[in-house]
């Protein structure tokens, strides 16, 4: 279980996150929505320690992520808004490199299989600098098949994907749901998110404004509205 407690973050004295607390249970698919600049991406980046926070704590199964060694991040996989690859390398080389960073040694055949599964040509050896946004997004999805993660943090995963790509992503999400893996999804597309997530949380001005379970407002939200 991922537990986020009282996270605060300021950029240049401007508060981006204010006392944000969240919990993601094992096997839960949590959707995070909110307008631009509400702090959704920042929260994801804080969880994987790309961005530092000014206060609060984050733990995975009771072990702190913020004050621990790199090994605590091993169960987490973050796919950001940007592709997160090296442009001069090929798709297969990028995947192999990322696998090695997680201490894995996949065979070239495994990498080729993962590339084929997301609809990329494994024989293509050119640099990914020539890839379109949609192809990069598919390559990012191939990362999820290569790394044995327990919690996946996805920031705007549908950006650049065509209809076929979106449907492939939906299928992958359903597979992950069956495997009892946890997901934290961030998207502007509230309709798409709500069709996949068990619970939705809305961030606005760096605060959690709304929390819904299967379309029903949670007790926490009702209390917030009464206040």
């Amino acid at each position, binding site marked *: 279980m991922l537990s986020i407690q009282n996270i605060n973050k300021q950029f240049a004295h401007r508060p981006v996150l204010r006392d944000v607390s969240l919990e993601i249970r094992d096997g839960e698919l949590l959707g995070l929505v909110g307008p631009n600049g509400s702090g959704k991406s920042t929260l994801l980046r804080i969880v994987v320690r790309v961005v*530092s926070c000014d206060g609060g704590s984050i733990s995975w199964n009771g072990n702190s992520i913020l004050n621990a060694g*790199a090994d605590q991040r091993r169960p*987490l996989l973050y796919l*950001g808004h940007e592709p997160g690859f090296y*442009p001069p*390398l090929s798709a297969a080389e990028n995947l192999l490199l990322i696998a090695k960073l997680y201490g894995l040694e996949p065979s070239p055949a495994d990498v080729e299989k993962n590339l084929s599964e997301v609809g990329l040509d494994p024989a293509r050896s050119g640099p990914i600098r020539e890839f379109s946004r949609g192809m990069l997004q598919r390559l990012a999805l191939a990362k999820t098949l290569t790394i044995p993660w327990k919690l996946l943090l996805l920031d705007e995963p549908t950006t650049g994907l065509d209809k076929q790509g979106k449907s492939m992503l939906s299928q992958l999400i359903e597979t992950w749901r069956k495997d009892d893996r946890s997901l934290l999804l961030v998207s502007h597309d509230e309709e798409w998110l709500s069709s996949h997530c068990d619970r939705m949380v809305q961030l606005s001005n760096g605060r959690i404004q709304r929390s819904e379970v299967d379309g029903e407002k949670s007790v926490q939200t009702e209390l917030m509205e009464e206040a």
Partner: protein
Amino acid sequence: MLAVLVRKDLLIEFRSREILISMITFGAAITLLYAFSFRPSPESMLTFAPGLMWMVFLFVSVLALHRSHSLEKEFDAFSMILSAPVERSVLFISKYLSGFIFLVIAQMVLLPLFFLFLQLPLPANLAQMVAVFLLVDLGISAAGSLLSGIVMRVRVNEMLLPLILFPMVTPLLISAVKSTASIMDSQPFNQWKLWFQLIVSFVIVFSLMGYLIYDYVSEE
């Protein structure tokens, strides 16, 4: 993990050839400029040469440091590395080592050109010269990798890096120039021992500092 990261930097450079080509082209151009601008006596050239030489290598190293980190930024690969289970201290050492390797390769091409075009005699004690060069390269790479990590997320980082790096490595460069001049003048080690000790101290301080604080400076 360190080997994986250093191999990654070398493979990227092998594919793109962006860093070494720009370093060597820029260094060769300045060397030629020096060669055609100065026509002093061989004695006075020996006095000027070490300073000119290290000026070239300082500028060339900034090119390498900046390009190496901007490649990390291009598709935000740096965030991918930071989010992976990789110790940040290991990440610093990998950047430090790859920066050192690029600088040594560039010097292997540029130094013969420098000696040829400026008609300098080869130093009698080549081993001392090599030791000083390797140590100064380590110092520049240590300070440069640490500072690049700090400024890489800033929008005007290409301007900020030299602005902070140059004053910071000034003690190292003065020591490098003094040591190189002494070696080229065939002075005994005792006479320039202090400069050598300064270089060693600089390398130790910045290597340790980078190893210890990169975890904090690499996060946004």
